[in-house]
């Protein structure tokens, strides 16, 4: 099976879906030139009409995507960085997720907002935040944050074929990561987790880059004789509650690892759900490992210190044992 980078897998998903369905198009700033490698080369194949460069106008571009979606097209709106979604908040929170419901099911909004999300390039607060947790709070918006090239491709293709608004977050820190990506077409279902490692002592739930943090922690725990089960949620909304609860039923311990600021983080939602629905299974209080509660700092040393580390995860697991 060929090994490809995470961004190459995303580019492949975009190209395949654009070839398959003429209603699919890409719109955003500098998508022609492909300022991010995930969109490079698409303009050469698909031309001006289907790879549309826009002014730097996140609100209008997001809304234009919605307008195109409700009139029969399937836009992929590339807004570059997760933090730029904040500039388009009205269109996402008030319109995209609500339109179908608000208008009594008269329309559907088949639309993908695609952004890079999270830390990893030492770019400071405005280009380094993970933003997925905000959109988990919005009804009827799907949110995906894959951790591998394989998942990235399969989930992006599903997102493009989905008839609902989807926020597809690809992790800035994982862009160069390589993994096996089949040459034959495949799709992955949105909302289904992937158990990365089986274990019976503790359940560690993660998403995107924190999956690797959790796996690294699991290796260290193994040297202590502790077997951790590591779950990669892959989708944040909807999220695979059942896989998590089944795992906790087996392990009795739960640690949520998430690159969000702590309050109302994705980890908060997972932890609350486990505490609410799996309390009888728990042998210890649930634990959260998140970013430090400060804006993202610039210096690589400080940025690293803000993010969840494998040592933080190991410490959290230890807390469930005392």
């Amino acid at each position, binding site marked *: 099976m060929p090994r490809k980078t995470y961004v190459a897998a995303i580019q492949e998903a975009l190209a395949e879906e654009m070839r398959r369905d003429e209603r699919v198009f890409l719109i955003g700033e500098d998508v022609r030139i492909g300022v991010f490698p995930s969109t490079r080369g698409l303009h050469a194949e698909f031309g001006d009409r289907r790879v549309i460069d826009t*002014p730097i106008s996140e609100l209008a571009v997001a*809304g234009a995507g919605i*307008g195109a*979606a409700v009139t029969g097209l399937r836009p992929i709106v590339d807004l570059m960085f997760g933090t730029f979604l904040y500039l388009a908040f*009205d269109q996402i929170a008030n319109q995209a997720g609500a339109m179908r419901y*608000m*208008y*009594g099911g008269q329309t559907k909004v088949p639309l993908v907002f695609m952004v890079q999300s999270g830390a990893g390039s030492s770019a400071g607060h405005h280009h380094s935040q993970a933003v997925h947790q905000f959109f988990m709070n919005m009804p009827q918006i799907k949110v995906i944050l894959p951790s591998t090239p394989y998942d990235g491709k399969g989930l992006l293709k599903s997102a493009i074929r989905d008839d*609902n608004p989807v926020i597809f977050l690809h992790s800035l820190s994982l862009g160069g990561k390589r993994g096996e990506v089949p040459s034959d077409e495949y799709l992955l279902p949105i909302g289904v987790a992937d158990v990365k490692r089986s274990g019976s002592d503790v359940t560690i739930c993660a998403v995107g880059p924190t999956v690797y943090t959790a796996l690294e922690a699991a290796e260290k725990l193994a040297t202590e004789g502790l077997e951790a089960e590591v779950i990669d949620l892959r989708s944040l909304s909807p999220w695979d509650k059942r896989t998590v609860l089944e795992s906790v039923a087996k392990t009795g311990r739960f640690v949520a690892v998430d690159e969000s600021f702590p309050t109302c983080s994705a980890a908060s939602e997972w932890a609350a759900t486990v505490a609410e629905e799996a309390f009888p299974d728990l042998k210890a209080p649930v634990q959260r490992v998140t970013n430090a509660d400060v804006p993202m700092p610039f210096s690589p040393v400080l940025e690293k210190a803000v993010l969840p580390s494998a040592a933080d995860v190991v410490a959290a697991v230890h807390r469930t044992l005392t």
Partner: protein
Amino acid sequence: MHHQDIALEVVLDIYTRVLRIRRFEEEVGRLFRQGQLPGFVHLYIGEEAVAAGVCAALTDDDTIISTHRGHGHVIAKGGDLNRMMAELFGKATGYCKGKGGSMHIADFDIGMLGAIGIVGGGMPIAVGAGLSAWYTDSDRVSVCFFGDGAANEGSFHESLNLASTLRLPVIFVCENNQYGEFTPALQAMNISDIADRGAGYGIPGLVADGTDALEMYRVAKAAVTRARDGGGPTLIEAKTHRRGSHAEGEEAFLGGQTYRSDEEMAAARTKDPLLLLHSYVSENDILPAAQLETLDAEITQSVAEAVDAARDSPAPEIESLFEDLWV
């Protein structure tokens, strides 16, 4: 009013649209005062000429986007009074099954892509409808209704610039009714004509008399033709006047304060779009007086029937809360 070039059947069509809006809105105002309608209600009385004139220049395939003050746009585009009224009552038979309400009525079958309760919120979506027409080589145009208040939102700037740079078939119709809520439009901007802003985007910016439905029709028709021919967007500023409240029952917010003079309101009444058009129709013998009265009676009757039907309609089932979710 000098509109001899506009065909008589078109004049009558526009007159009918204006009258339908007026009679519907008058009844909605009454129902609200009687405490029969939940939520907020923003009436379109005094501004009917804009929606009626513009929508008469459109085909059924063309799309429109509306605002929190959106009843007139739905009616002008050909919306169903029964389904509208039922929606205002929050009933299961309403356009949105009671999930939208006054500020969120849509009828996708007639190209009415929705009223949007956020000021300026519909503007980018209208650009997207225009993008869709361009993308599919359709000759459809997209009309974006918005108010003077929206012209000060960031979405106005982004939307006009985006539509202009992509040369999309979008017609931006600014209904300058002189007030953003209770603040005079002229206090909220340092120019007298919003139309001047078109120049900043390299598109035509036209001022039109928003109390003259036939002028609105003429100006819109030219903008529609330009858009269909690939000429790109036009900004039309319709100077009009909000006859009634920002929202019905505004006295409760104002606590006895006033924000408009009696003189101003009296002057506005002399420019009533329905009376102006009625005079034109009468003076030009477009329809005999008796038939005009019959038309009015028919419309009044259809509004009354819509109210009866809405009252008799069932409330939404609680189970419907979980319908119309992800496809």
